[in-house]
């Protein structure tokens, strides 16, 4: 369970998040939707400690996160796959995965085995540099590197960015499976509302720094006004 | 300030300084002032490069060497010609070297540039020492008749009470301060000019500079040329006054490049007023150091100095090293920045 209350963040004079309150229940996928510049990335960066908020509180499984360093937050079991995946291009696939285990101090050997079983393509390419992977493979590597840390909470920033629709669908299904199998709490930030809503249990919408609704995903998907105004899903 | 008033202020300020110099009693003080003028010009040269165009150089002593040798060489072969020509020759020669070094340098960023200029400054003294020994004098260097006070100047003073040496020093001090004032005036105009604005844009945001159509390389190279020309002028001035240009001249070695960088940072990077403070600081650093050590219980008779007899001669560099580090971390805009910060605070307090 991750609970964000009255969170406000500003970069200098520019307000990025304004009194945002969002709850993401344990074992569920909560989508945070919104247009470019709505503050979605800032929200995740604040949760993982990269951005210091002006006010508000964030608690994850009973731990207050604000004021903690990013690496300490990561070691609490909160994995953050940043925008653009954040795989280290100069490292091989295996080095990237090992790094995930080293950071979280989990067992490297068994972790590698698990992730290779989950993502066979990573095993095939384990000696290749991450720079040589396709976009979808990089996203799998980023997911694998996050999962090798045995997290309880997974923060995903635009996993569909730059991916073809079929690949996006594939990645989304993987996320759904991961969540169902391990009781993971997921916050999924997406501009691609349609694909995100398909796999999410709950959804919140951010609009210019304010949170508008935290409701079951199906309700949000059916809400005509949200669809056309904020999500750009007019069909 | 209106134009006329500004001009009047310059003239009055010049007169006050001239009268002050004319009344200096000690030859050492006058000689120090001469040096301060040259240091000011060299500091403005460095400050222009680093503070305005954002390029760092630890090699400006090399340009000073080029200017100094060019002036000495010209004077040696054209005795009796006006000093101004020697100085112009020095400016042209060092500007040319600045262009040659500036071309590859403009493609380099921060540390590469700093290292390359440092290597230039370290290697350059070997040139007159090893090459063309017959024309450049090898390790002895070149010796010329130093600048001396003309008849009309000496007549202004009572030669029965004032030593000719002192009159001479007063004359060189006046020449040096005059040239420094000229540089100050030129550079303050340059700052407001199109080139000055281009420099600042290149420093602050090179992408934006390119978008508005500025040629980055050319603007950076121009900064190098201006910086080299000023350094060369400073080197030439020192040589014309002292009468010698040699590979071992303090101002021509890479340690002086480091000293220049230190002084510039202490005064305030990119500030003309800071350069004046820094020049005086450079000339009087020994006296300042002695004063500080004597007033902090580190003087020659103290316990520490008994333990470490070699401390005193190194005190200056220890102090400057510490000051440089502390300044950069806590007051990166130097003395000028501190003063203007203090003034801002005072203004805001009085307005409240």
């Amino acid at each position: 369970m991750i609970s964000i209350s009255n969170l406000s963040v500003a970069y200098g004079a520019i307000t990025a998040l304004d009194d945002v309150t969002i709850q993401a229940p344990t074992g569920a996928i909560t989508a945070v939707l919104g247009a470019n510049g709505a503050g979605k990335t800032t929200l995740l960066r604040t949760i993982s400690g990269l951005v210091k908020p002006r006010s508000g509180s964030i608690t994850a499984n009973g731990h207050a996160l604000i004021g903690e360093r990013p690496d300490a937050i990561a070691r609490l079991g909160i994995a953050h796959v940043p925008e653009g995946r954040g795989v280290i291009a100069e490292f091989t696939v295996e080095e990237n995965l090992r790094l995930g285990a080293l950071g979280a101090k989990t067992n490297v050997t068994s972790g590698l085995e698990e992730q290779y079983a989950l993502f066979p393509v990573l095993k095939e390419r384990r000696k290749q540099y991450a720079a040589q992977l396709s976009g979808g493979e990089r996203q799998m590597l980023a997911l694998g590197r996050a999962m090798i840390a045995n997290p309880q909470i997974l923060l995903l920033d635009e996993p569909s960015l730059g991916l073809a629709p079929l690949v996006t669908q594939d990645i989304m299904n993987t996320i759904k499976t991961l969540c169902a199998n391990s009781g993971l709490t997921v916050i999924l930030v997406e501009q691609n509302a349609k694909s995100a809503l398909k796999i999410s249990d709950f959804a919140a919408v951010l609009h210019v720094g304010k949170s508008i609704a935290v409701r079951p995903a199906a309700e949000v998907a059916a809400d005509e006004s949200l669809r056309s105004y904020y999500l750009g899903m007019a069909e | 300030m209106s134009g006329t008033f500004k001009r009047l202020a310059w003239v009055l300020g010049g007169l006050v300084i001239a009268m002050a110099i004319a009344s200096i009693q000690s030859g050492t003080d006058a000689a120090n002032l001469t040096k301060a003028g040259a240091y000011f010009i060299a500091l403005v040269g460095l400050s222009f490069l680093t503070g305005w165009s954002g390029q760092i150089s630890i090699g400006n002593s090399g340009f000073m060497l080029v200017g100094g040798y060019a002036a000495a060489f010209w004077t040696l072969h054209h005795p009796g010609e006006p000093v101004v020509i020697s100085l112009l020759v020095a400016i042209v020669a060092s500007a040319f070297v600045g262009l040659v070094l500036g071309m590859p340098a403009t493609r380099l960023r921060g540390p590469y540039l700093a290292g390359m200029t440092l290597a230039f400054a370290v290697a350059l003294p070997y040139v007159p020492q090893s090459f063309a020994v017959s024309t450049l004098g090898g390790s002895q260097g070149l010796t010329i008749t130093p600048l001396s006070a003309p008849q009309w100047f000496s007549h202004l003073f009572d030669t029965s009470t004032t030593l000719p040496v002192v009159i001479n020093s007063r004359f060189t001090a006046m020449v040096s301060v005059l040239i420094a004032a000229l540089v100050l005036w030129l550079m303050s105009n340059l700052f407001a000019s199109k080139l000055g604005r281009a420099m600042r844009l290149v420093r602050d945001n090179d992408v934006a500079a390119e978008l508005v159509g500025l040629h980055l390389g050319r603007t950076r190279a121009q900064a190098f040329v201006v910086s080299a020309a000023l350094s060369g002028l400073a080197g030439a001035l020192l040589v014309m006054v002292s009468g010698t240009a040699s590979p071992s001249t303090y101002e021509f070695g890479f340690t002086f490049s480091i000293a220049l960088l230190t002084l510039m940072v202490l005064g305030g990077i990119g500030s003309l007023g800071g350069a004046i403070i820094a020049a005086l600081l450079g000339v009087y650093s020994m006296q300042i150091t002695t004063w500080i050590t004597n007033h902090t219980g580190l003087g020659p008779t103290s316990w520490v100095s008994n333990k470490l007899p070699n401390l005193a001669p190194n005190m200056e560099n220890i102090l400057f090293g510490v000051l440089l580090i502390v300044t950069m971390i806590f007051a990166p805009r130097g003395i000028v920045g501190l003063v203007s910060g203090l003034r801002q605070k005072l203004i805001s307090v009085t307005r409240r």
Partner: protein
Amino acid sequence: MIANILTNRIVNDIAGGASQGVIIGLVALCLVLVWRATRVLNFAQGPMAMFVTYIGMTQMDHHVNFWLAAVISMVVGFMFSALTEIVIVKPLYHKAEINPIVVMVGMFTLLEAIASAIWTNIPRYPTAPYSSINFQSSGNPTGLSPLSTFQIAAALAVMTFVAVLFNYTSLGLKLRASALAPEVSKLLGLRVSRLLTLGWGIAGAVGAVAGVVISLNPGGLSPNMLDAMFILGFIAAAIGGLDSPLGALISGVGIGVIMQLINDYWNSNYADMVAVVLLVVALMLRPQGIFTKNSARRV
């Protein structure tokens, strides 16, 4: 036949030049390590190494043997460099590019002055564990002595250690990650700040080895003994590319050999100038170094 080769003038120059070149490469390696970890060019690398070499080597006056003195230098070198990073370099990350350069120049001035105040400018000559008389081959001297062989071996051993540490250990993986991608590393739970300090510490220990090895040269141990070596090390690192440890070693050896040949066949005063000319030419051809992969500059 073999005897002829071993005592051949050019072969001797190459051997002698390579032994100095490996040391240049070692100095270059320190610069590369610090640069890769924190994007700071440590202008005080030479004086820092000199300072800790003094601290270790002067223990030999108190009946400490050479090996222990060298270890003291390395340990102090590690701690001193790490402390420097914590106290004066950390406040400067994310500041303008020139700020750390200026601060390290200040460190340069400060350390040389303190060393001169404590130990004076008169060189000291630590007793080397090996003879500096060149090996003989059929009555003629070869290009190497037991001492220069030891110097090469020490430098190569340190480089191998660093290469293995960075490329084949978990710690090395973490160190490289914090240098390449500090933010991602933090998100993975790495204590990046601590790892960067460790990176500086390792560079400091490597620098101490360079200092100890150089103090056994004929010039001995003096406050400015590493100034020239630093310039050459920088030239090697810049030609090789500040991101490439192997490039630093190769160009270090190259510079050492070229300078030895110039010394022997031409004039020792020209050697430094040639090194600078090499640097200028190399930087004009490839401003990012010869051994680094071409990559877009980050805006």
